[in-house]
């Protein structure tokens, strides 16, 4: 049995390949159009030196989260794991990752140049457990043709919640009068998606948990105000269908059945290929704040990583976040680079500049950074409560006041 343990999938053993290079198995979930860009950077890195070889193992994020723990426990896991920085604290808390603070302390790694939000996203309990792969802000995509058809100016997307609410009656179309619109003002998903709905709580100064991650804010008047606004827009004005997941929302916008969607840069390729005439803008601001949701994917090293592999992985991390690595990545994927100092060198794709524009980056916020219970809170408390409210099973205030005690219970665990 011992003889075959090291074969194939990397594992805990310090295997080298035929050329004497250390092989690193890199698990990630870039299954979309961003996958080839990732592979390109890895290929460039492998060609740039003769000590380390990185092999990308691309699988859906779902599968990755399911497999990573069992495979690391079985000593047969990845050498480098990428995951949403929001999920990292939970795994760090369980002892899956080792702290990477010494990476940030080494001046050779040039980590000063990285976007602060991208670095801080993977902090947990005073240590940093990840090095950023990407840094994505969620922008407002709007369908210019649908705006024109509704008699609205296709170059003037809504900039505030109230402006948006005023446009809802025009952007929602019920052709046959059956009470079910054929076209919705916005595709706003409530489950299995990047957490757009939760981030809307910031607009009034509310949120799910306090900034220090110790107190639930879900029952605060500001949070209830934001939820009331959005739930009633969906329920009473039919601004969006109820029960959408992320893929449904993308589909709705892509097929011209929704005028607006708030989503990340990875959808640009798909919408371009669908021939959609769309514009990009900073999402409409709430009455109190104009926070923009940012999602960071970070790379971590499993608990059983040897010093030798750690050193090899650090070389790859440094290359990934180097100017040349980031220019290739941003050009190929449409993501803004993790470092602002190369922004003007990203010229092949217009999107990195838009998603990484200073006024967007300045408003960027990560959802529940450093909260170990962040994943469970989102999936087992917030999302079910939201679905209840959207289905009219109680008042927004009652539902979220109760959910708030559950959030607090998760935080106190």
């Amino acid at each position, binding site marked *: 049995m011992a003889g075959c343990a090291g074969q194939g999938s990397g594992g805990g053993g310090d295997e080298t390949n035929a050329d004497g290079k250390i092989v690193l198995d890199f698990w990630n979930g870039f299954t979309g159009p961003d996958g080839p860009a990732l592979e390109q950077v890895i290929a460039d890195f492998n060609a740039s030196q003769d000590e380390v070889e990185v092999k990308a193992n691309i699988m859906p994020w779902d599968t990755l*989260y*399911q497999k990573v*723990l*069992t495979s*690391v*426990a079985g000593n047969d896991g990845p050498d480098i794991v990428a995951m949403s920085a929001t999920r990292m604290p*939970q795994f760090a808390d*369980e*002892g*899956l990752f080792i702290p990477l603070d010494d990476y940030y302390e080494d001046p050779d790694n040039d980590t000063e140049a990285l976007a602060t939000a991208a670095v801080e996203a993977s902090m947990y309990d005073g240590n940093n457990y990840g090095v950023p792969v990407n840094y994505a802000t969620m922008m407002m995509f709007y369908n210019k043709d649908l705006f024109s058809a509704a008699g609205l100016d296709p170059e003037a997307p809504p900039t505030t919640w109230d402006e948006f609410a005023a446009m809802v009656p025009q952007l929602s179309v019920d052709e046959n009068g*059956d*009470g*079910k619109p054929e076209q919705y003002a916005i595709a706003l998903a409530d*489950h*299995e998606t990047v957490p757009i709905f939760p981030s809307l709580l910031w607009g009034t100064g509310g949120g799910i948990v306090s900034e220090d991650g110790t107190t639930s804010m879900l029952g605060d008047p500001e949070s209830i105000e934001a939820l009331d606004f959005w739930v009633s827009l969906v329920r009473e004005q039919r601004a969006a*269908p*109820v*029960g*959408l997941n992320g893929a*449904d929302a993308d*589909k*709705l916008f892509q097929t011209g*059945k929704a005028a607006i969607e708030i989503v990340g840069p990875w959808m640009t390729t798909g919408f371009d290929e669908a021939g959609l005439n769309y514009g990009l803008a900073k999402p409409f601001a709430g009455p109190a704040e104009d926070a923009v949701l940012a999602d960071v994917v970070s790379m971590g090293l499993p*608990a059983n990583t040897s010093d030798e592999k750690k050193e090899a992985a650090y070389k790859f991390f440094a290359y990934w976040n180097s100017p040349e690595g980031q220019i290739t990545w941003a050009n190929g994927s449409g993501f803004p680079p993790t470092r602002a100092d190369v922004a003007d060198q990203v010229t092949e794709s217009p999107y990195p500049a838009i998603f990484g524009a200073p006024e967007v980056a300045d408003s960027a916020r990560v959802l529940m950074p450093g909260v170990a219970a962040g*994943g*469970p809170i989102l*999936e*087992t408390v917030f*999302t*079910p*409560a939201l*679905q*209840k409210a959207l*289905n009219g*099973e109680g008042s927004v205030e009652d539902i979220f006041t109760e959910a708030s005690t559950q959030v607090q219970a998760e935080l106190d665990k």
Partner: protein
Amino acid sequence: MTSTSVAPAPPTVAAPVHRRRLRANGRRTMTAWLFLLPALIILLAFTLYPMGQAVYLSLTDYNLIRSAEWVGLANYEELMQDPAFWNAFGNTVLYALVVTPVTVVFALLFALMLNQRFAGRAFSRTAIFLPFIVSLGIIAIAWAFLLDPNIGLLSYWLSLIGIAPEQGWLTDPRYAMAAVMIVGVWKNVGFYMVIYLAGLQSIPVDMYEAARLDGAGPWQRFRSITLPLLSNQTLLVSVLALIATLQAFDQIWVMTRGGPFFRTETLVMLIYREGFQELRFGYASAISFVLLVFVFILSMIQFGFLRRKQVTY
């Protein structure tokens, strides 16, 4: 009789014969054990050992990475007060109580219909059996498409007759459970139908002829001959179907992920969520053990109840 000449065999001779027979018996027993060995090893390695391990883990706090920490009955105590557990328990019982009898009744009806001779019989049999052999993932995805509120064919047809669900059947809390139940029945009914078909064909035809000569009508023949003589199949089918429904997971997982807001979350899905998503393998093991005991008790009751009605012929 020749026996008198054989009977007075001296004891000195009988002893080795006896010993030889013993040795032969022992050898036969050994052979039996050897034949059983592979099955026993598999049973031990893949059923009994994991079962014991699960019981042990249910008494610990364990996340796969750190070593298990003994917590005694704490997981079970938490379980009893956990609304998520009772919600999943309620959903599982509801699902099993509806899907099991409906599946059994439909399996019997289809078997009776498809036991007749008519054009298209083979096609109908295949059509009903087919869902059982298709991968569950594919079936669940296909149904999710059919029921999709925007692009779903079934949703479209239903809208033509005035039933227009604004949100998907699977995301509407009023219909989600019913939708996964219907697919659950549809998926498995063919398998149980085949068991019933086999049973129907083993009933001697002359019994029906005799009954007909005695003036028994179709309903009477069904009540007095078919149903009693199928009781073995009914026992098998009901026990199998009940156990399967109590363990419902994959199809519902792909179709709804337990949503909306846990309306369709079953016990096995909760086990999966607690274990692989919340990384609480001790707690998940405690739920598994409770489910195991529950399935065992229900199966025993069912067995005891239906066995009294069993017939042999």
